[in-house]
C-alpha cells in the first residue's frame, strides 16, 4: 500500500502539495512513483516560469514511459529542485522528500483532496 502523509494535500493526478505561508511546494506521491517504476529523467520548468492549475508543468520519464506532472495551482515558479537533474531516482526513493517545484504568487488553486480522500482515490484506481 502506497504511503500517504496526513499533513499534505493531494490531487487526483497524484501530486502532493504543501503550503508554507505563500509558497506552495509540489511533488509526486508514493503511489505515482510506484506506478511509474524506475524514474530516469525529470524535466522541470525554470525559476520565473508560469504554471497553470490543471496544466502540465514537468515531464517525468521512467524506463517504461513518459508522464506529465500537473500543477494544482496557478502562479510563478519560485524554485526548482536542481538535485533531480542528476539524481532523478530520488523521486522513487523518497517521494515526499523530493519536491519538484515551489510556486509563489498563487492566484488559483484546484480542488484538493485531504489524506483520507486521497487514500480512497488510490484504492479506487488500484481496483
Amino acid at each position: 500500500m502506497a504511503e500517504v502523509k496526513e499533513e499534505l494535500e493531494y490531487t487526483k493526478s497524484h501530486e502532493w502539495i504543501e503550503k508554507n505561508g505563500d509558497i506552495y511546494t509540489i511533488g509526486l506521491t508514493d503511489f505515482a512513483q510506484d506506478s511509474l517504476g524506475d524514474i530516469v529523467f525529470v524535466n522541470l520548468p525554470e525559476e520565473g516560469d508560469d504554471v497553470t492549475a490543471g496544466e502540465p508543468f514537468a515531464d517525468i520519464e521512467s524506463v517504461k514511459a513518459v508522464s506529465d506532472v500537473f500543477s494544482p495551482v496557478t502562479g510563478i515558479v519560485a524554485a526548482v529542485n536542481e538535485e533531480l537533474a542528476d539524481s532523478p531516482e530520488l523521486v522513487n526513493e523518497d517521494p515526499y522528500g523530493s519536491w519538484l517545484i515551489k510556486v509563489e504568487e498563487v492566484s488559483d488553486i484546484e480542488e484538493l483532496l485531504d489524506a483520507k480522500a486521497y487514500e480512497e482515490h488510490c484504492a479506487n484506481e488500484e481496483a
Partner: protein
Amino acid sequence: MKKTPLYDIHVKEGGKIVPFAGYLLPVQYPTGIRTEHEAVRTHCGLFDVSHMGEVRFSGPGALATINHLITNDYSKMKIGKCRYGIMCNEQGGCIDDLIVYKFADDDYFVVINADNHDKDIAHMQANLLPNTQFEDLSSSTAQLALQGPLAQTIIEKLTDPQTLPQGYYSFCPHVLVGGIECLVSSTGYTGEKGFELYCANEHVTKLWQLFREAGTEEGLIPCGLGARDTLRLEAAMPLYGHEMDEQTTPLEAGLSFGVKLNKDEFIGRTALLSKGNPRVTRVGLVATGRGILREHQNLYIADELIGHTTSGTFAPHLKQSIAMAKVDIAHAAVGTKAEADVRGRRLAVRIVELPFYRHD
C-alpha cells in the same frame, strides 16, 4: 484476452499485469525493470514467453515451402541449427520476422511473434507448396527464456550438460530438464548467453518452479516484458512493429543479413530487386543532451527532417538514453550529429555503431 499457463504464477510473484499481443503478461515484477535488466546482464533472468507462436512444416515439400515463404536461405542449413529470417509480402514489406529450427531435411519448427500469429498462419496456409504438412502448435506450446551469464550453470543443475545445445543458434529437440521433456535452444532476445525452452503447456509451471529454486544461489529473478524490451534494444535486436512492418522492407530495416536475394525465388524478392538499394536504413542513436528518446520522434539536422526513431528508451545497463531509428542513408554515418523532437523540445543525439551493448 488470453492467458499463458503461467498467469497465476505471475500474479503470485507480484507481477504487474498488462495486455500485450492479446495476452495478459507481466510488464515487471516488484523488483522493477532496472533490477531485472541488470540481473540478466550480470546473473540470470527467467522470462515467460509462452505467448510466442510456433508452427511446424513437414513432408517432402517443407524445405521448398520454407524457402518460398522466408527471405533467408535454408537449403544448406544443418539439422539442429536455428536461423533467423523474414516473411515478406509481395511488395517486399515485412509480415513478420521469425526463427526456423531444422529438425530434419523434411521437418522444420518456426517461431513467430504472438501479435502476428493470425495473419502469419493465414499467409503460410495460403502459400504452402505441394507435399507440405502444416501444423499450428502455438496453443499447446509454452516457452521460457533463461538468459544471462549464469544460465548455463543453472540449467546444468537440472539436466545432463551433454544433452544441451553446443553453440549459439543451435538446439536439441528432446532434452530432459528436471524430468520434463523440452526443446532447448541456445537463443534469446537479450544479447546475453542463455537458452529458450519449449515444452507442453501442462509442464511449464513445474519447469518455472524448478528454475526459480535452482537459480536462487545464482541470483536468478523473474523478468517481465519491460526488461525484455530494454535488453533487446541495448542489444540492437529489431522488434516487429517498430523496426519493421508491412510498409518497411527488411533491407530498409537494416536486416539484409537475413535476406538472400541470390536465392532463386521467395515471396517479395521481385519487389525488393525492383526497388533497388534502399534510401533509408536502421541506425543507433545515443542522446548526448538531457532527455529520453522514445519511438516515433522525428530527427533533424538543422531544419532538414532525416528520419524518425523506431524504438527508444533509457538503457539501464549503459545508463544513457538510446534509440534505433530509420534515417536517410545520406545521413546515416556513425558520428553524425542530429536532434530529436522530444515533445516539442530538441534533444541532441549522435549516430553510433550497433549493437549498443555486446557481452564479453
